[in-house]
């Protein structure tokens, strides 16, 4: 108890009756609402809007959903030994097909590389055009947009939706809600249904699915994805973007004064006031007429005029809304616009806005793009140079060698050949660096032993077989190489170091 001196006087351990209430006269009374860290969800009912960004969003939605739903149905001829689905993740056979590319499990680094590219691609996009991914092509955004259209279709526009949300449950509201949720489920079901098509032959799977013959995994996957789609897109919506998704946080760290943001130009808009007030006092009031259209159309329910914030996915619908209002009141467009903070300052100071390419091309975008392109080129190079023939050798360790009755020494190996072509191929295995050695497999006899073997490899397969290598009695331990050569016009080769054990 040597810290008596440092103890603040009011927290004396000897509590007196006066302490029980502990009122600091300078503090406000305790029954005042304390600071609450929990933000209760406010309903978001975005209003219908049309404009160039809205039309662009339609286009992006059409393209992304089109890619998602159509891709599994594209066909790609790979000959009789491989599936003809253009994009197929064949988990059962451990193959990943993407048009002309076939990836084996040991080449998973290509997939890892693609994921890294996707990550750095997001960096490129963010440093150049801000949160364009969030605003236009993120699945959460696209599906939320889809569900919000359904809301408007069934419940009407913003005001009708608000009224309905406040109304007590009536038969008509019950019917509307049931109908709407049925559509939600339908969308969710088709989302999950399309997903499983990537993992099996789509036409076969559809037939099996509806006849009840598909694997339980297929039904479970569809059920889970139906629920997550409806849950995330139908109900959680902007909550996912604001609270669940890590990407907005990462992006906030990557944004700077050179990043393109949806920005309210406060130097132009403030002080807000109606057209009438502005007409009376043109000096006091700015261009913003405080009509709240930007708030009404926002799919995440924020007010962009409060400045850049994590809730803004830069979908630019408020730009459409504001541009339309500005046109109506006869003021120049772009009160809310894509702009960098740097340019905002410049414009506020009365300078000319910079051309768009200058905004996009700055050192950071160029650096990210170079990294992204370098990885892409590296992957392409690796893809072009990869071999479709592979050999790997594992030596028997117990026993390390076997003495035969004629005094010769035999070693045994498990040789694995890999034929990555979608056709059967003959392959020649040879012993290099073992001039006296001959070999045979367990499928043949020692009488057929030779220094090279020819093995018929099935299409798209790995096969292991036992190989015996024998050398005369007087040999010592030695290193040598198994080589394989494909006997076709590709004449691919691969080799694997091995060791020949012999008695000391």
């Amino acid at each position: 108890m040597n810290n008596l001196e440092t103890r603040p006087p009011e927290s004396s351990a000897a509590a007196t009756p006066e302490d029980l209430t502990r009122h600091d006269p300078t503090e406000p009374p305790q029954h005042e609402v304390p600071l609450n860290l929990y933000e209760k969800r406010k309903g978001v009912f975005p209003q219908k809007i049309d404009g160039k960004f809205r039309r662009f969003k339609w286009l992006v939605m059409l393209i992304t959903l089109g890619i998602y739903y159509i891709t599994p149905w594209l066909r790609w001829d790979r000959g009789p030994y491989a599936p003809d689905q253009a994009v197929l993740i064949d988990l059962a056979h451990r193959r990943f097909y993407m048009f002309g590319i076939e990836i084996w499990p040991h080449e998973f680094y290509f997939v890892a590389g693609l994921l890294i590219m996707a990550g750095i691609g997001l960096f490129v996009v963010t440093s150049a055009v801000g949160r364009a991914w969030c605003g236009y092509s993120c699945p959460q955004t696209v599906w939320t947009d889809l569900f919000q259209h359904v809301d408007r279709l069934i419940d009407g526009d913003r005001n009708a939706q608000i009224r309905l949300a406040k109304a007590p449950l009536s038969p008509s509201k019950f019917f509307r809600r049931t109908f709407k949720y049925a559509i939600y489920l339908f969308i969710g079901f088709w989302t999950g249904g399309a997903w499983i098509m990537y993992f099996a032959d789509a036409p076969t799977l559809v037939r099996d699915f509806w006849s009840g013959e598909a694997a339980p995994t297929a039904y479970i996957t569809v059920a889970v994805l139906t629920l997550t789609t409806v849950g995330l897109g139908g109900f959680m919506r902007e909550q996912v973007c604001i609270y669940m998704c890590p990407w907005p946080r990462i992006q906030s760290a990557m944004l700077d004064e050179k990043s393109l943001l949806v920005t309210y130009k406060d130097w132009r808009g403030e002080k807000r006031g109606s057209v009438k007030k502005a007409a009376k006092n043109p000096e006091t009031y700015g261009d913003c007429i405080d009509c709240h259209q930007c708030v009404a159309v926002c799919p995440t329910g924020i007010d962009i005029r409060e400045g850049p914030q994590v809730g803004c996915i830069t979908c630019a619908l408020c730009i459409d809304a504001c541009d339309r209002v500005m046109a109506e009141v006869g003021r120049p467009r772009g009160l809310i616009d894509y702009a960098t903070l740097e340019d905002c300052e410049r414009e506020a100071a009365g300078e000319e806005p910079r051309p768009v390419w200058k905004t996009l091309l700055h050192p950071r975008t160029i650096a990210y793009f170079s990294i992204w392109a370098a990885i892409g080129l590296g992957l392409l190079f690796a893809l072009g140079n990869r071999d479709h023939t592979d050999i790997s050798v594992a030596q028997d360790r117990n026993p390390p060698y076997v003495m035969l009755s004629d005094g010769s020494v035999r070693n045994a190996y498990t040789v694995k050949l890999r034929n990555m072509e979608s056709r059967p191929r003959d392959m020649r295995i040879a012993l290099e660096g073992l001039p006296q050695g001959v070999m045979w497999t367990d499928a043949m006899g020692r009488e057929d032993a030779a220094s090279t073997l020819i093995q018929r490899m099935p299409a798209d397969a790995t096969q292991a077989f036992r190989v015996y290598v024998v050398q005369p009695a007087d040999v010592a331990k030695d290193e040598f190489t198994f080589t394989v050569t494909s006997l076709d016009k590709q004449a691919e080769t691969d080799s694997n170091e091995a060791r020949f054990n012999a008695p000391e």
Partner: protein
Amino acid sequence: MMANKRIDKPTGTETVGHEWDGIEELNTPLPRWWLWTFYACIVFAIGYTIAYPAWPMVNSATKGMLGWTSHEQLAKEMAKADESKGAIRAALAKIPIERLPEDSELMRAAVAGGRAAFKVNCVQCHGAGAAGSKGYPNLNDDDWLWGGDLKAITYTLEHGVRQPDGEDTRFSMMPAFGADGILTSAQVSQVADHVLSLSGKAKDNAAGAQIFADNCAVCHGPNGKGMREFGAPNLTDPIWLYGGSREDVIATVTNSRYGVMPAWKDRLDPVTIKMLAAYVHSLGGGEDFVEVAEDPATEVDEQS
């Protein structure tokens, strides 16, 4: 002390009322979802201990209402595993062992099954890699005492070698030439030199050759090539079951050697024995079964 509860202004949370050197603790209750999960776990645990064996009693634990036991579960899983092998075992039971190589699929299955059975029954003497040791033959090489085709291996497995009281067991007995006074120790040395000379490890000597012809050739053959009927090893090759040094050979001639292998037909089922034979045959030294080639017609008749 407990009466010291107050509302902490910045967070709006009540304190627990304790204070240690000016440090107070906020009374933040557990999240409700956590609490309900906890209660649900308690309810689940009570149900679990009723349904499954749980409470320790004097002699054993409570049985549980579902009557589940881990023994039973193991038995079921083992039965299921056996069932899945049923087709292969039935096919193996039907096929004569010497015809097994014709069905490469079945052969592969038999070798795999044999590898597992070998690890349980045979590694104690023959070693994990079947390489044997002094007195225990190496099964990887092409030197066989009693024959290395599938049928001969199966016979050895079924009836064993020098199995005491084994009626059909492989049997032979080399006399203890030195210990029983058949040969003098000088003669033993001479014949040992002759034996070693057969594989070029020593100089030939006429006396030794004569002793060999008189005493050893009956079983080992005039050239020392051995005879499989007696399990008499080939003395001309570099493979020595009991060591190939001069001392080793002298010891063998003096005291004789005979290893024993149990008969497995009473311990293992015929299918497992076939699998073991297939595995041993597959180790690299297996010989072809010649009789089949000599009279294929009879075999085909037997099969049908």
